[in-house]
Structures are given as structure tokens and as C-alpha cells.
């Protein structure tokens, strides 16, 4: 279990994974996000909470949406933001991850928002940064994407009343999905009644049920009476590893169509972490349909990331102010 991300007082110091975090903390993130989401509708969309702080977006993997929403969130908190796309810079010159990190630290940065293609990279970085620096995981390999999971929880909470009453289905490539792992942990912590995963055996992790989910291979059975349908992106390179035969067959079996969606509860919402592959995992009519909350998720991403960043920086300052 990971408790590196909490201070001695149980406050959020880093945000690396949902695993090990308690329900009140997840609720606090959502409550804070609720407060921040008001700001985004104002004329002046800024608060001075992180004024004078320097936040580094350290992206070892490409991203548009996540990086932009982190950047916007930081700017709305009045922080200074630097963006580093490392896949095209230092490491291609042979610099080690730690060297890159220590170099950026020497610029007196306060927070790293990190995305990396290796599972455990955020944890590794958090273990090696100076004590005054916070690390926010913006996705590490197939392991975790905790801010995405929290913005999804926030979105669900906006539409549904009570987590324990809900039945949630996550559909698609669970095996490679850091989003799914974090969602499953968040949903479990929030006490959701039933979590289902739906996919072919080739795209489900080994001993999948140990994650605390019910496993379905038949989408129609899996969607029955669910309140929330979360579709995952299918990486088109999955055909290469012989995991699935074709996008066409995948859509036939696991694509979300209007007909299949009718099996869920009538007021079910449809979510997707994006970017979506229309006609591969989701039909356009569903993605653009009345039950879809996909674009709302993107909007909520800003408020949730503001919440997480302000909480982590707050815990840091408090810790630094403690008498030695």
C-alpha cells in the first residue's frame, strides 16, 4: 500500500494513486472541486492560492487534454507553469530520469505533474524528489491515473445521488488501462454497490476479480441495469499483439451502440476518458447523445485538478511551517 502520498497528518502530499486513500479524502477532493468549479464560470477565472509557486508539467508521453487541463488548472490557481515534453528532449540525449528531475528541481520548482509510459514512474519520482516538492501523477504506464478517476467520480456525483446505490460497468481494454485501475479503486473506496468490467479475456488483467470487480465477457449481460457506463479507449495498435482481430469485430462485440445502451437503466450516463474512437468503442450517436457526459468530464477535469493541486500544496506549506 502506498502511504508516501500522505503527510503525517494524513493530508495529501503527493497524488500518485487512489489505492490507500480513504473515503473522506476522496470526498474532500470532490467538495473542493465543487467550490473551484464556480470560479470557472466567473468573469475573472483566477484565484491567488498558488501565487509564486512554480509547477512543472513533466510529460514523458504525449497528451493534449490532460496536459492542457493541468496547465489551465495551475494558471487559474495563479501558479507559474513550465511544460516539458521529455519524449522529444532530454532522455533522447541519454539523460537519466533522475538527472532530468534533479535539474528541474534546481530551478526551485514546487510541484511536478508527471506522465510517464512506465508503471510506477510517479512513485519512483516521488521517492526521489526533495521534501518540499509535490508530485501529481498524470498517468503512469498501465498503473494509475488518479486525477482522471477523481474527475470521473465528480462527474458521477453530479448526476447520481448515492454511490452505494450504483452499479457501474467499465468496458474495454482494462488490461492496459491506468484509468480503469484508478476508477475501480475510487469506486470501491466510495462504496459503489457493484463494479463490473466487460471485455474479452485478452484485454482483462490476470486474476481480474482480485481487483474487486465482477467480470463479464458478454456486453449485453454486463450492461443490464447499470447506472453508469464507462467506455475505455481502444489503442489501435492492440491488433498487432494479437489481442483482438480487428476494430470491426471489436465494435461488433464491445462497441457501445444505442441498442446496447437500452439494456442499461434509462437514466444511465455514458462516460469516456477520451480521446474517443468513433465507431470502434462507441457509436457517434451515443457519444453525442443525450446520455453522454463525455465533454462534461473534460470540463470537470480543470476543477478537480485545481482541487488536487491546491490540497497538495497546502499540505506541503503546512508541513514546511512546522517547527523543526
Amino acid at each position, binding site marked *: 500500500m502506498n502511504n508516501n502520498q500522505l503527510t503525517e497528518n494524513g493530508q495529501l502530499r503527493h497524488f500518485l494513486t487512489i489505492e490507500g486513500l480513504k473515503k473522506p479524502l476522496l470526498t474532500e477532493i470532490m467538495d473542493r472541486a465543487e467550490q473551484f468549479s464556480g470560479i470557472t464560470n466567473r468573469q475573472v477565472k483566477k484565484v491567488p492560492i498558488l501565487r509564486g509557486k512554480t509547477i512543472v508539467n513533466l510529460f514523458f508521453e504525449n497528451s493534449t487534454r490532460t496536459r492542457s487541463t493541468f496547465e489551465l488548472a495551475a494558471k487559474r490557481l495563479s501558479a507559474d507553469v513550465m511544460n516539458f515534453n521529455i519524449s522529444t528532449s532530454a532522455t533522447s540525449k541519454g539523460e537519466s530520469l533522475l538527472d532530468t528531475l534533479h535539474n528541474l528541481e534546481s530551478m526551485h520548482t514546487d510541484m511536478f505533474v508527471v506522465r510517464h509510459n*512506465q508503471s*510506477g514512474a510517479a512513485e519512483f519520482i516521488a521517492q526521489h524528489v526533495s521534501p518540499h516538492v509535490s508530485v501529481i501523477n498524470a498517468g*503512469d504506464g498501465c*498503473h494509475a491515473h488518479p486525477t482522471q478517476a477523481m474527475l470521473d467520480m465528480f462527474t458521477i456525483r453530479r448526476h447520481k445521488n448515492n454511490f452505494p446505490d450504483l452499479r457501474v460497468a467499465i468496458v474495454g481494454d482494462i488490461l492496459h488501462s491506468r484509468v480503469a*485501475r484508478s476508477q475501480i479503486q475510487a469506486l470501491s473506496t466510495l462504496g459503489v454497490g457493484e463494479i463490473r468490467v466487460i471485455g474479452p479475456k485478452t484485454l482483462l488483467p490476470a486474476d481480474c476479480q482480485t481487483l474487486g470487480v465482477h467480470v463479464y465477457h458478454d456486453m449485453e449481460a454486463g450492461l443490464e441495469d447499470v447506472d453508469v457506463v464507462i467506455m475505455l479507449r481502444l489503442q489501435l495498435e492492440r491488433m498487432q499483439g494479437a489481442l483482438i482481430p480487428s476494430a470491426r469485430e471489436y465494435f461488433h462485440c464491445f462497441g457501445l451502440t444505442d441498442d446496447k445502451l437500452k439494456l442499461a437503466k434509462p437514466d444511465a450516463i455514458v462516460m469516456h476518458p477520451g480521446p474517443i474512437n468513433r465507431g470502434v468503442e462507441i457509436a457517434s450517436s451515443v457519444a453525442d447523445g443525450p446520455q453522454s457526459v463525455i465533454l462534461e468530464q473534460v470540463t470537470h477535469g480543470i476543477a478537480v485538478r485545481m482541487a488536487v493541486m491546491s490540497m497538495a500544496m497546502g499540505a506541503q506549506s503546512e508541513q514546511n511551517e512546522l517547527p523543526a
Partner: protein
Amino acid sequence: MKIRIKNGRVIDPASQFDARQDVYISDGKIIAIGEQLEGFDADKTIDATGLIVSPGLIDLSVRVREPGQEHTATILTETKAAAAGGITTVCVPPDTAPVIDNPTVVELIDDRAKKSGRSMVLTMGAMTQNLGSELLAEMARLKAAGCVGISNGLSPIKNSVIMQRAMSYAATLDMTVFITASDPWLQSQGCVHEGAVSSRLGLGGIAESAETIAVSRDLILIEQTGVRAHFHNLSTGKAVKLIREAQNRGLPVTADVSAHHLHLSEHDLGNYDALSHVLPPFRSIRDREQLQQGVRDGVISAISSHHQPLDKDDKLGPFAETKPGISGLETLLPLTMKLVEDDEVNLHTALAALTCNPADILGINSGQLKVGAVADICLIDPDSEYECQPLNFVSAGKNSPFEGWLFNHQVSHTLFHGRLVHERD
């Protein structure tokens, strides 16, 4: 130099001898074991009261990183570490740089080993040239140069035709083939055991079938070619079962396990602890139990260190990008004896797995305490109670996941060819 080892509990696993006796050494050999030897004028007397006097340990797989990676470790540093671990014979796999596929490399290693003079350094010749899995290495010349067996190191021979012919050719020369069995395609899918932990951590999993498929194929080829074969570093219970069945069928097959696989499982990966990154990976608790069972019933007759010293930087990075391997020379004995303390394995079985059994596998006349034998001896203090501190290892490799473990058995003295090469501070 005449040495008397006085009043120790002398255990010779090969003959099941176990008694409080004195051991008398002269000119590098054991000249007597008994109560009193008239007229023996010892230059040095070691008081072994309370200690176990065992044959020096024989380790089937020790990477010394020389030649090729002397910045990481050398034959000198690692033979010092071996001596500190009570090990008097180490066997070096062929994956040095250059590869041990010609007598010149064997000579170089022999030369460095003689200069160190702290342990026997045996070499394993390459099965294929440059371990490339295409052309056979010159096995007869390697044998003549002193190689005790042939192996393709950690690079599995994918092509079954090449494997079958390499085995056939080795059988012609009466050489033992040493195999680290792993299906390369399945292994390439990950870095940890495929199961609940890989699923939770989002790390690529190596299925149990990576080992069982490779063991199965090779057992069939062993049966076909009649070669004598040894499997290194088993990690799964099912592979133990396959070897057991093969032995029952009468195939000339032996196996070893690493001391660390007898203690750790997938659950010890913690929070991506790169020190537990090793190949084959730590598997389930059930696998670990079946490996221990294999040691108990003799299907796995040897326990080895599978020593892989690494640089500090090699373990600094996201888990999958770190190098697999554990520095094991100095934990081989205490980890093995921990199984005795825990009543998992009896004392004689444990010591046999470290001495006479690996000697038999290598076909060398060693690993025994008897009159006339070379005086390679290890003295073990069974009540030392100490904490494992990898940073204090003698080995250049400090990469061990056992930091903070409490051990009881500690090597107090090591004698190599009748000379004291290690004495506990």
C-alpha cells in the same frame, strides 16, 4: 601450513557424518578427522566450539562481471565476496563479454581467479557461438580448456532444431547442458509474475507458462538426445512437477533454485521495489511452497545464489526499466539456513544442497569433508543473530532485497585449499 579446527560440529552431508571432532589440515588437504592426532604440530588452531564445520559451499551460478563489465564487479571483488559467504567454488555462466565461447576467455578467467586465490572459479562454456543461438560453439575445445558444462546463459535457444543439435553434440562429448528455461515470447511480455500483483501494479506479467513451456520442450529434447541436463533457477511449482516426473521416468535431469526464490514471492514487490526485480520473477506463495517442497524431496538438489551484482544506477528508475538481478553471494548461506530454522528443510538436506549435490551436478570431486579431500571448508556460527546490511556487502553489488532481515547463521571462517581466506571481524 598446518591448521587444526578444534571442537566443531563436523558435518559431511555426502556421508551423513555429523559429530563433534577436530579437523586436521596440512598442505591444503584434510589429513585427519578425529579426536586427537598424535604428532600434529599446528601452525594455527581455530577454536570451532559452537560452530558447524561444513564443506565449502559450491555455487552453480555466479556472475562476476569480468571480463566485460569490470566497472560493476571483478573476479577479485566477487571471489572476496564468495569467501565471505563461505563459498569456495563458483561457477561462471558464459554470458561474459566476450562470451566464454573459446578457450582464451577461459584462460583469462582462470588467470584472474588464480591471482585472487580465494575460491575455485569454474567456467561454463557457451552452447552457441557468441550465444547467438545459430552456430554451435566449440564445445570440445571448451571442455579441454576446463569448462564444466555448457549453457546458453540467459538467452534461450528459440529454434528447436539448434537446441536439439546442441544437446546431441554435448551428449557426444559427455557434457552436461545447463538450461535457464524461459519461453522468450512469453517472457518478453513483462517483468513480474503474471497474477494479482501484476494486475494491481499495472506491470507486464510473465505467465507461469513461460517457464513450463520451455521446460517441457527441453525435457522432450533431453529424452530424445540422451544428454545430461540441469535446469537453473526454477520459479514455478509446475516446473518442479515436470522435473519430478522426468526424474521418475529416469531422465538424467537435475535442478536448482535460487535462495531468494525460496523466500520471496510476488507480494514482496511492495511499491515497485526494484531490488525485487529479478528473472525469473518471484511468483505466487504457492509456487514458493512448491519450490521448498522440491528442495525437501530432492527434486531440486541444489540451492544457488544466482548472484548478479549490479551498479546502483541499474536499480534507479521506473521498475520495468531497471535491470533484473540480485547480489546473492553473501545471503546464500543465511537464507538457506533460515529454512532450517523454520523447519522447512532439515540441516543435512540444506547443507547437501550447498555442497556435495552441486559438486555431483558439476561432476567435480569436491564438496566433501573427508580424509584426503582438498581443504575447502566453511565454518558456520549458528547463533550469531545479525541484521542483513547490503551496503556492507563485500561484493561490489549491493543490490539485495534482504536489507533489515534478521539472520542467525553466519560464516565465521572460510578455508580455501587449506588457507584461511575469510575470517569474521
